[in-house]
């Protein structure tokens, strides 16, 4: 394996007596798609919050390209190339789809303490934004207010926004959450297209998508990683089958 781009070492987080991340360690190589699976409440989202800097970790380290970013605030991590999406769609509903993405481009293109020129007319930012929208197939919806996009389109917009930050690594928290069949296909197609271009941590409940896309899979249960391996290894791991995959049949009904 190549030198890790993202490396997580002994990360812990507790809410009072409840330990949500319990000594989590794993590595993601450049271009690797690393899936993180686990039952509801396993602590997957919490872990993404810790990696992205939205939540402070109690202990442990996060490194990006060798640099320790554990103490950096979220915005600084983004500038260093760590972008994320949210499980619960987080966009600017009153802005057009294009402006949602253009803002991400603006964040890394010169100072934003400019007070006079109209930002919406900056061709360079708009062109970069359009490029990201095209990658996810939303170019036709550029001028639509983000708030009135369909749910599936909003999920794609989340991806386009993350892409426009020019990331090295992407943390994707259930990009398929709440999507219908057709929508989930277009999101999966987009993920396939992103695979290999970035180091990706993908949280997903949709096992079909996970096993189709992932290079490696880590299984998180009660905040602990109980196994890491290729999709094949994980499918056949007895501990995983017992702790997680065995429940899939029931979980699917929930």
């Amino acid at each position, binding site marked *: 394996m190549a030198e890790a781009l993202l490396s997580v070492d002994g990360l812990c987080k507790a809410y009072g007596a409840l330990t949500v991340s319990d000594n989590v360690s794993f590595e993601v190589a450049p271009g690797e798609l690393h899936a993180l699976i686990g039952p509801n409440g396993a602590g997957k989202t919490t872990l993404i919050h810790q990696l992205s800097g*939205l939540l402070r970790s109690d202990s442990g380290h996060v490194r990006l390209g060798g640099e320790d970013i554990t103490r950096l605030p979220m915005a600084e991590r983004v500038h260093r190339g760590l972008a994320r999406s949210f499980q619960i769609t987080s966009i600017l509903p009153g802005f057009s789809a294009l402006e949602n993405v253009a803002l991400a481009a603006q964040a890394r293109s010169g100072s934003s303490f400019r007070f006079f020129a109209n930002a919406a007319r*900056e061709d360079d930012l708009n062109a970069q934004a359009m490029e990201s929208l095209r990658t996810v197939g939303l170019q036709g919806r550029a001028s639509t207010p983000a708030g009135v996009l369909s749910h599936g389109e909003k999920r794609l917009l989340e991806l386009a926004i993350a892409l426009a930050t020019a990331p090295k690594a992407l943390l994707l928290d259930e990009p398929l959450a709440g999507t219908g069949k057709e929508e989930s296909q277009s999101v999966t197609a987009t993920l396939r297209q992103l695979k290999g271009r970035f180091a990706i941590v993908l949280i997903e409940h949709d096992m079909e998508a996970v096993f189709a896309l992932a290079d490696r899979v880590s299984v998180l249960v009660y905040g602990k990683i109980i196994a890491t391996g290729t999709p094949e290894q994980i499918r056949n791991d007895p501990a995983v089958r017992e702790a997680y995959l065995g429940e899939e049949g029931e979980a699917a009904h929930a």
Partner: protein
Amino acid sequence: MSAAGTDIAVTAKARQAVGGRERAIIATFVLLALAPIAAQAGPQGYIIDLITRMMIFAIAALSLDLILGYGAMVSFGHAAFIGLGAYAVGILASHGVTDFVVQLAAALAAAAVFAFVTGALSLRTKGVYFIMITLAFSQMLFFFGVSLSAYGGDDGLSLPERSRLFGLPLFSSDKGLFYATLACLIGCYLLCRAIVASRFGRVLRGARENPVRMTAIGFSPYRFQLVAYVISGMMAALAGALLANQTGFVSPAYMSWQRSGELLAMTIFGGVGTLVGPIIGAMAFLALEEWLAGLTEHWKMIFGPLLVCVVLFARGGIMGLAARIGGKRDG
């Protein structure tokens, strides 16, 4: 596709609202510019004085809208900045410094420092706490004003003379002050409009809608909100400097919490987050106050409930109401 239909409707509606606002503000400025001429038919001095006052508060409400409407910062202490501007003029004038450029520079500097320090602390809090802490800071300044016995303390102080511009007594005539105020109002409006659409304004607006999203693309909303707070405070100080000239008098009452409340009411009354709304709101507010006060001495009994009704039933204030009426008429 029905979704595409809704977008077009949404975009068209938004564009229509902006177009309507544009027409409203141009009409307002033209009417204001002509007002002194029309006033010749009536009690000219009284009318010019009243409209000057209305425009001064329009500047203050506009400055509040910049942070309230575009930054979701509910400041309950905005009158403090009016007070700072007014006292800068009053104190300097009492020492014989009557040049408006110097007075204004002092007013803006004082407001910038006060906004920076109090904003840096206040913006660490959110929601109700932000409201309370801005109120607390303005009350501190109010009581500081009361304790300034050298400058009249509780009673305030009278201006020995109105400000001069480059030695010229431009403000000494009511008409001179009127047009200077109008020029300031138009300038502040154009400035706010540019800011709101700029890179800076876009970050501010984004942080109003979803601060976590803005952080997740690499912005620190705090810095942008703080700068907006400083700009807004300085603009309100300009209103204060003009107010001191208009009334010829400065007192701690300018900084009272009631004044801050009135500024909020004017802004909400006109329509938050529209820039045009608060300008019209402030002027309508003062006109209504003046008219009701002429009708009965118990005018506050009518005025209070009326404001409550507008806020409750006409969401989006005057601008919201106008947009709905316009929308209905155009089908």
